[in-house]
């Protein structure tokens, strides 16, 4: 209270001082004191405003800003009124906030206890509160204050299961902002918090970007609790730990670190916790903000964490001994550590026969190589190394290129850039004209350009094959990296031929060798060779052969399955 009075005095002072002078110096002084923006100051120094009377509007604004920026301390007290006023001041001009004042019956003759329930309209389940908080409280009489206190705090006789109380108003304020309700009454300094948050959220839908033919189709949503429940349903052990971090000064976003204790290396968990604790951003909204701060090499083109929006992928990763980070309001999860080969694996692989899957994986690797190399190879061969290609192919290519007025490098660049532009545009096109644009794209870029003599048909084929090849990589961020790397390689091929491509590939490969994802090398198990883990890289060994976990799991948990998962085959032999 005294502080509030002091605050008022201060305000009076500033108002008085503003009334006193219209000289710019004093105003600018005040501006400096109050950290006004430059624009505001400019407005201030406008002579028109200065002349408009001795009580200028601006000084009122300044005073108000000054008032609002003062952090008024919360005083813990038994009384209701000061606390209520503090909350009202904190939530001044927040229109959704509801202060529900009521009084609890104290019996005949005694003064009723004043109580208040504070909640945020739209995020609070009012029905629940009315049934489970207000009704029991208002339905009976509490003859003494101790009876009420005991009812609420000692005996927990309110018909709700999850409630907690705090002494500090700042924590209560935080809870209110998360959709909880705060309740306090005259006579006790504690504030009860009810977790009846209810807000509209998206239901669980199919994963838009990671579709499979055979397998579950659930995807994460923005609500953190739902996401966690999706994972919990798949890993039903108490060893699945979920640690909460709140990041962001203004956003207070909840970030959850999930791992399987006993399988995940403790050093990894420690490292993740360490890195998360360093994040001190003002507002954390997107998961990529966290990712860039957690990554070992943020400057690299290759992301070092794996993204997915499917709970089954996350569960599989957790079972392997990795950690997963989920964030509120993000339907994505990040998995670390991630190697390049994990991003080349698709969920489809594990739902199909292992022979077919191995073949598809090999095709995937081949085409990812094509997506980065094919245009450069074409440019290098046609510009520098025409002796390498067979004669008939050379004649076909040369005759196709007769009509093109550009050199090979320029032609390739034009085609590739148009393709990228088309791809980017198609993301933003409304659904209804999407079909038309794709047809136009195909016609214009494909047929008409060739017939007009701007590009050669061989180039169109190469660009299309490259485009298709770049879509074949399951991890979208990895395919994006390869797409971007195509351009420097094309430049190198145009300057130095195959020697340039070789230099470029060596540089890229060296860079990838140096990348680490939470301490795990980016190209393992290929780069630091680990033959045991290679079973899941190029081919997919059948499940009964995938006996051990990858190298980054805890060493004493290497075995994933028992040795005789298929022991019944032997028994059959014995019987016969």
């Amino acid at each position, binding site marked *: 209270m005294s502080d509030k009075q002091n605050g008022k005095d201060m305000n009076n002072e500033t108002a008085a001082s503003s009334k006193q002078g219209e000289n710019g110096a004093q105003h600018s002084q005040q501006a400096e004191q109050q950290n006004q923006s430059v624009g505001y100051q400019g407005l201030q120094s406008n002579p028109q405003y200065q002349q408009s009377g001795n009580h200028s509007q601006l000084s009122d604004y300044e005073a108000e800003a000054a008032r609002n920026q003062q952090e008024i301390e919360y005083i813990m007290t038994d009384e209701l009124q000061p606390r209520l006023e503090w909350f009202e001041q904190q939530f001044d001009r927040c229109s959704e906030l509801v202060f529900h004042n009521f009084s609890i019956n104290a019996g005949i003759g005694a003064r009723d206890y004043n109580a208040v329930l504070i909640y945020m309209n739209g995020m609070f389940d009012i029905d629940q509160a009315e049934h489970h908080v207000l009704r029991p409280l208002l339905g009976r009489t509490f003859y003494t204050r101790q009876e009420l206190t005991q009812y609420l705090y000692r005996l927990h006789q309110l018909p709700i299961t999850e409630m907690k109380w705090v002494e500090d108003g700042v924590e209560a304020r935080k809870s209110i902002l998360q959709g909880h309700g705060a309740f306090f009454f005259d006579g006790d300094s504690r504030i009860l918090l009810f977790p009846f948050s209810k807000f509209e959220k998206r239901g669980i839908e199919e994963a838009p970007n990671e579709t499979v033919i055979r397998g579950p189709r659930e995807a994460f949503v923005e609500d953190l609790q739902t996401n966690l429940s999706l994972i919990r349903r798949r890993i039903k052990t108490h060893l699945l730990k979920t640690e909460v971090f709140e990041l962001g000064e203004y956003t207070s976003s909840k970030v959850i670190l999930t791992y399987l204790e006993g399988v995940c290396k403790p050093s990894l968990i420690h490292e993740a916790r360490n890195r998360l604790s360093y994040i001190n951003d003002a507002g954390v909204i997107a998961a990529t903000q966290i990712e860039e701060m957690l990554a070992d090499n943020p400057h690299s083109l290759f992301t070092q964490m794996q993204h997915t929006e499917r709970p089954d992928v996350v569960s599989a990763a957790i079972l392997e001994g990795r950690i997963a980070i989920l964030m509120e309001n993000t339907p994505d999860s990040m998995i670390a550590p991630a190697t390049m080969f994990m991003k080349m694996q698709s969920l489809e692989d594990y739902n199909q026969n292992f022979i077919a899957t191995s073949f598809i994986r090999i095709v995937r690797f081949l085409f990812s190589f094509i997506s980065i190399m094919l245009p450069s190879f074409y440019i290098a061969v*046609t*510009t*520098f190394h*025409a*002796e390498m290609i067979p*004669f*008939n192919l*050379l*004649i*076909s*290519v*040369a*005759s*196709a*290129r*007769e*009509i093109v007025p550009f*050199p*090979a*490098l320029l032609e390739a660049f034009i085609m590739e850039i148009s393709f990228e532009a088309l791809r980017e545009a198609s993301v933003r096109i409304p659904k209804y004209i999407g079909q038309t644009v794709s047809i136009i794209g195909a016609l214009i870029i494909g047929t008409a350009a*060739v017939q007009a003599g701007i590009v*050669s*048909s061989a180039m169109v084929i190469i660009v299309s094959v490259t485009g298709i090849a770049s879509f074949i990589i399951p991890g979208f961020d990895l395919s994006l990296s390869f797409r971007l790397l195509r351009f420097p390689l094309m430049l190198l091929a*145009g*300057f*130095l*031929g195959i020697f*340039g491509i070789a230099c470029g590939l060596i540089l890229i490969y060296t860079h990838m060798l140096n990348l680490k994802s939470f301490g795990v090398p980016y190209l393992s198990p290929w780069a630091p060779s680990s033959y045991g883990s290679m079973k899941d890289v190029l081919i997919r060994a059948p499940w009964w052969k995938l006996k051990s976990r990858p190298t980054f799991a805890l060493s004493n948990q290497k075995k994933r399955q028992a040795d005789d998962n298929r022991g019944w085959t032997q028994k059959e032999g014995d019987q016969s």
Partner: protein
Amino acid sequence: MRKLLLILLFMLLLTGCWSSQELNDQAFVSVIIVDKTEEGVEVTLGLPLTNNMAVGDAGGQSLGNQQFGFFSRTATTFEDALQKVQGDLSRKANFGQNRNIIFGRAYAESGISPILEFSSNNPFLRLNTNLFMVDGYAKDEVTKATVVSERFLATILNKYIEQQTSMQTTVRDLIISNTSGGDGLIPILKFSQISEGAVVGTASTVGTGGAGIFRNGKLIEPLLTPEQTSGAKSIRNQLRQYYYSVASPTDGNTVGFYSTIVNVKTRITRKENKYHVIVNPTSEVLVLSNNSNIDFSQYEQTRMMEKKIEEFGDNMLRETMSIIQQTGADVFHFDRYFSAKYPREFNKIQADWREFYRDQLVVDIKNVINLRRKGSVVRSFRNKHQSAHEKEGSEQ
């Protein structure tokens, strides 16, 4: 940041964007024809005219435009002629795709060593360029021929080499040995006329037949016939397919065969003061048609047939070898075997190797024939019919 900029600036010096050559600024020579005229060496470059090939036209004749062009010039030396031809071309001649050189008879007789020297010395002409010759004026014959079975003449020649239809002699084969450098057999391209030839009824088309013997880079008489060329091919392990017929040892009727050389063992030994080169080509033979009463199901008859075929092959090979040896041209480079096994003796006779080869060296050729497949039936259908009759007769 500044370091990065500096590095990038310096890297600009490394770029080779000024050494890139556009595909369409180059003329890819696919066949070189070298002739000798009164004025000197006449060089003809054959190259595909890609500007006449329409886009989307997968190789057919487009509106009668010429798809292959020959550019020819005469000068005193090969290089001067090349310079003159380049002066005619609107694009820079690129020999990287060239695999064939055709010599005319006149030039062959005057010596092809300049071309061999050119190929071996610089990287423009490959060492494994195939050599052909034409018994006549090469430029006229080649340019007037119509190319029917393939898209370009060069493709036909490449396919001949690939299928081992004609003998393959590369520049390297001629210069591989110092002592017998310039000795070799170069296959002859025959240009057949309307009445007889590869594609009957059209203008002259290209075909294979025979070979020319070169000694020290010069063509010498006689020219080998196609049969003798096949013999020479079998010594060089290039006879992939050969159809022939041999009289059967039982009744003298012909039996048709198809054979493939699978292996040739060449070694040199010394017997009774004479050096023998022993050549053992191994063939696998299969029976194509059986017009005699020989019964291949019986081992002795098969063995007799094999011996007969061996005799046949030996005769042909020995005849070929003797013709070649008489000329003194060591086309199979036996001096390499000699120098490897008997270096001291070789050093003594090195200076007169060709004479030694002609007079003193004995070449023993012994064929090894394996009759692999005797056909679907082991007896001629006539014989089967006959024996069935006999059986009927005996039963009755």
